């Protein structure tokens, strides 16, 4: 009986083992890229993330900024941030690896998947340099632009997921409501637009999808970090 179980398992493991391909050559940027674990928020006082949730909710999406490097870290708790150490938002330490997840970072609003039911519904990403209106946000998958607000562009992907891009420079937005876009199409330039409210130069990116739970369903913002790490590695490797 035990053999009957072990033999198929060994076959599965053997099949899963990657056969040697041509040697993978890493670019310098790939070599330097590093990231902290999904759900590990920095600093610790910034909240509790979903440690251990390494599930990739949006597999194979393109990275939402056209080119690297990009730096995923907290705007609120980073240098110059509202609750961060004093200094310039453009401090070079804000523009360094490793990435730090900031999904579920402390916020006032409800977030069902975060500890305590509240938290940041997406992640904040800084562009290569601290310059607004220079770097394009792009479509992460084929889909339709369903909504353009004061500082929001919403893409509904063919997967049914909804992706939100916040803080783009409004005059630079290249798409219209109802436009069909392809993965990688330019949407607009990353900026610090939040209406009359000041924010730092960054892209707030979030993913909303419907989860069916024993026949019922709910639409929630899901953790984007692991999907973005995966997408960013492909971007750096030249295969976005």
């Amino acid at each position, binding site marked *: 009986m035990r053999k009957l179980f*072990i033999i198929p398992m060994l076959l599965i493991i053997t099949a899963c083992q990657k056969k040697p391909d041509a040697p993978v050559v890493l670019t310098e940027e790939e070599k330097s890229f590093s990231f902290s674990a999904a759900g590990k928020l920095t600093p610790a006082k910034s909240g509790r993330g979903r440690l251990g949730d390494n599930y990739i909710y949006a*597999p194979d999406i393109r990275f939402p900024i056209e080119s690297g490097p990009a730096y995923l870290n907290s705007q609120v708790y980073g240098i110059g941030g509202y609750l961060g150490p004093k200094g310039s938002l453009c401090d070079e330490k804000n523009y360094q690896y490793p990435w730090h997840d900031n999904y579920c970072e402390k916020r006032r609003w*409800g977030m069902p998947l975060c500890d305590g039911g509240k938290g940041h519904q997406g992640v904040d990403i800084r562009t290569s340099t601290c310059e607004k209106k220079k770097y394009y946000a792009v479509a992460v998958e084929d889909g339709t632009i369903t909504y353009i607000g*004061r500082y*929001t562009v919403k893409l509904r992907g063919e997967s049914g997921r909804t992706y939100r891009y916040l803080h783009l420079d409004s005059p630079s937005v290249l798409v219209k*409501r109802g436009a069909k876009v392809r993965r990688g199409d330019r949407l607009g330039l990353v900026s610090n637009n939040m209406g009359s*409210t000041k924010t730092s130069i960054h892209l707030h990116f979030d993913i909303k999808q*419907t*989860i*069916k739970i024993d026949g019922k369903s709910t639409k929630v913002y899901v953790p984007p970090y692991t999907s973005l790490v995966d997408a960013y590695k492909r971007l750096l490797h030249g295969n976005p």
Partner: protein
Amino acid sequence: MRLLLIIPFIFSLLHADSGILDIKWPKANAKHLKPSIPYPKVLTEGIKDVKLPVYIPNSYAYDKNMVVVADNNFYTISFLFKGATIMISGDKTFQESVSNNPKFKAMLKATPPVTFEQEEGIMTAEFNRHGVNYSMAIECDNPNIDERCKETKLIKELYNRLIMVGGRP
């Protein structure tokens, strides 16, 4: 060996098996489908292929400047006003499923029938009707000053004035 059994189990908690939700079609709002004054063409044409109940706030049902983006499985309708944008959307697809998972069950149980939140300066409402998930949002030029985005009064009013204007099985 135990580990080999545990690993597939962990990853089987969520399944990326997308599909269409079951809709329990309503009867109560059927009268709204045939209004005494016809809805504007932008609305009737825009939602003609939508296969889920289409709700919008009644006060905006005749707004000819609305923008409708829709297909069989979803709709998004937005209204532009001075200093603010209002949006409502419905979607009958799902992207993940999970069964017999206590954490997700508890999350669903803890979710109120409708939530009103201000997030990122945007006032939102989320709710499920007939098995479909709907979202509303009010986004302002001046989110920290404009009461439409600071207070829940307007979004609650809009939510309470939703009428079904179309959609078909």
